């Protein structure tokens, strides 16, 4: 359904093609367009004194920019950086302020010049319809038809189809070549450094922890013995093996029958890697016995095997079964009995 506006501007002569207007209401009764508003004269147009002032203002702004540039050059040398941190702050500040003045001077000057002294007559320019005219489109169609004829693209089915096949398949080797970006995942997510007898040690020093050190209300940030001295793969192992160690009153712990032997005298150890998306669950609230992850606020209850009590996590933190060795140092009874960290497909 095409409609015609009663009054169309003279520029509309470039718009030959009538488009469908769909649900638009084409009014026959529109208030007519009064045309461009008359130009309002500026002070700088009327009065040479104002124009001269404006010119001076623009010049001053450009000169301020020059001052700024020289100041920046000077500041670079005048504020050297030493061991003292405050020299960095000073160099940053004065070099930056100099460059600021040098840039703003040009910018404000140029804009002020345009606003006050350059003509501000509004001009109307005709648009052209984006769509080509009928002749142009016809000519284009002819060219395409000719190309088709000369190449035989539509006629020669065999060429066309085998071409599609070739073009579809050639990118595949280019994709396959990325196959060595990383190793096959294998078992790595299921195993950590913890083994039977591995001592629990303090992060980052690697000093072993005695059960008697862990008093009520303490929290120890733990790494397995041997991690502190590692050179290769240290962070990769730490990213799975980091553990939190806390002591509760034995009567406060509500332990599962199957996991009763995993704690030692009220001391429990849990994986520090959040089961949501892997941040360290590091906040321990001594009285509420809650572990809080600072990234997305998943909250775990230590009295009940770190089950999720708030936040987006979906699984309790894996528990590390612990015990003590002959000298009273805390040791792991085995590796974690489930993969640590976020959930994944093969879990």
């Amino acid at each position, binding site marked *: 359904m095409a409609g015609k506006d009663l009054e169309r501007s003279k520029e509309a002569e470039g718009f030959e093609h009538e488009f469908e207007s769909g649900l638009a209401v084409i009014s026959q009764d529109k208030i007519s367009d009064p045309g461009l508003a008359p130009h309002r004269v500026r002070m700088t147009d009327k009065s040479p004194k104002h124009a001269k002032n404006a010119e001076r203002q623009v010049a001053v702004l450009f000169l301020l920019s020059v001052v700024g540039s020289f100041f920046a050059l000077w500041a670079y040398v005048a504020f050297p950086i030493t061991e003292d941190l405050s020299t960095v702050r000073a160099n940053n500040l004065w070099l930056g302020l100099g460059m600021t003045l040098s840039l703003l001077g040009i910018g404000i000057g140029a804009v002020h010049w345009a606003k006050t002294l350059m003509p501000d007559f509004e001009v*109307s320019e005709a648009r052209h319809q984006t769509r080509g005219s009928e002749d142009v489109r016809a000519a284009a169609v002819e060219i395409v038809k000719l190309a088709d004829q000369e190449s035989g693209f539509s006629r020669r089915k065999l060429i066309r189809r085998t071409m599609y096949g070739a073009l579809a398949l050639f990118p595949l080797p280019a994709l396959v070549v990325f196959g060595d970006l990383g190793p096959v995942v294998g078992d790595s997510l299921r195993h950590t450094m913890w083994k039977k007898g591995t001592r629990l040690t303090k992060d980052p020093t690697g000093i072993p922890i005695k059960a008697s050190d862990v008093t009520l209300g303490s929290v120890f940030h733990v790494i397995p013995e041997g991690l502190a001295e590692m050179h290769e793969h240290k962070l990769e192992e730490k990213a799975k093996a980091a553990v939190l160690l806390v002591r509760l009153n034995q009567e406060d712990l509500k332990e599962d029958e199957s996991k009763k032997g995993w704690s030692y005298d009220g001391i429990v150890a849990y994986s520090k890697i959040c089961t949501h998306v892997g941040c360290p669950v590091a906040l321990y609230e001594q009285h509420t016995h809650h572990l809080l992850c600072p990234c997305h606020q998943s909250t775990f209850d230590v009295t009940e095997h770190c089950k999720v009590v708030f936040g987006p996590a979906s699984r309790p933190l894996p528990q590390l079964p612990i015990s003590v060795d002959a000298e009273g140092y805390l040791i792991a009874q085995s590796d974690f009995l489930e993969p640590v960290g976020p959930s994944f497909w093969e879990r």
Partner: protein
Amino acid sequence: MTTAVTEKKPEGALASTANYLDERLGVGGILKNFGRKVFPDHWSFMLGEVALYSFVILLISGTFLTFFYQPAMTEIIYDGSYVPLKGAQMSIAYASSLDISFEIRGGMLMRQVHHWSALLFVAAAGLHMLRVFFTGAFRKPREINWVVGFMLFILGMAAGFTGYSLPDDLLSGNGLRIIDGMIKGIPVIGTSISSGLFGGEFPGTEIVARLYGLHILLVPALILIFIAIHLFMVVIHKHTHYSGPGRTDENVVGYPLMPVYVAKAGGFFFIVFGVVMLISATFTINPIWNYGPYDPSPVSAGTQPDWYIGWLDGALRLAPSNLDIILFGHTYPFGVLIPLVGSLVFLALVAVYPFIEAWVTADKREHHVLDRPRNAPTRTAIGAAGVTFYGVLWAAASTDLIATFFQLSLNQVLVSMQVILLVGPIVAYIVTKRTCLSLQQKDREIVLHGRETGRIVRLPHGEYIEVHEPLDKYEMYKLVDFKDYRPTIVRPNEKGKITVGTRIRSALSKIYFEDRISPVSQTELSQAQAHDHSPAVTSVGNQEQLTK
């Protein structure tokens, strides 16, 4: 015998340069066609420029940084001048970032310019996108340009994310850990993608160098290509303009490129750069030395990504607990998948909106006159709902800071935001739509009866009236020149069937256009003027009467 035509020999340096270039590049033609191109002038058209200039600043400051930054994850012992990290073990990437900040004159400044400018780039691009949305500038022929712009917004986020992860500090490292956790949760291919991205187990020794390649080569190249396409289309389509006297869909009203725009837009580049420079000279951004080198064990309170990734972090925080579902031996972590898929769906809706609106209105004409937001109430309301949704997710990323700052319970803040996320967009839609319709009513009132002046006059026969000042014809035209649409009814097609598509389209058109205010017509205006013209009023004071 031939008579060769000889041109006049150019005289003077400028003329000979121009001649040199014209003979080799045809610059004369370029100047002729583009030199006086008309660009409309409105501050809201400059937001895209802010984004463009921020990108240029990023290229300049980024090039400086590439001369000093080293993307290696090999561990070394820090021996620079920052006392609280002396002797600490850290990656070379982190150490080189510290050196840029503390050992190199201008290094701190360039790092801060780079990061502040990155924040500004995405902010300006986002605000520009909102301006384009709320004024309907994405309508034909600019639908493809909307998609190109959308891609630029996504690429901006990608550039920012890859960039701030390069110093390998604790804050951005935890961000990478979160990304890895999300990727691992993707069904079937998640763990393989994670291994491929990090070159093995997290964190590995590859990721920083890989992100570096993306950050300085692939992503900026794509951004440049898309910017070129984006601007090329602005040249072909010419810029849109707001409705007003003399402005139609067939012309463009404004100022010529040379000299006004060259001065204003060129000057504006220096202004944007100057503002960024001022901020960078005086305010710290991303103090990596405070966070320390990345280690999977420590973490800082207040761990948030840069603002433009905030909405994704907020989505993760708002997901409910215990949403893992285990089916046939495989784990589906919906706590992670719902935010992931939900955000992709939201982005997809943003990208295809112009096509949805075009389908509903079936208006195939070219549109070069912009809508005032109030004159497209449903579109504006949808936009407000979308902004609310995005904004709530963005705010949800800082629940812990909100809790400490306003002394609230973290848990209550989070639950409230979960509720607002679902209810807020609906409320925003309703309130916005009604507000737009009311504003349109107000415009009608002003057109028909003029502006209320607040002057009360007592007429001879005792009646009190408030004097209304009628609009002049130029102001009036601005308020009456907008597109009006009506909903469609369901009709069978040629085969006599009513398709599902038609039903949906009709239903949507009702939602869009059932409540509508039409522009004031000439007849209405004449009637209103006749009505208001009472002999007593005419003789009161100095009023300019609008005569036909």
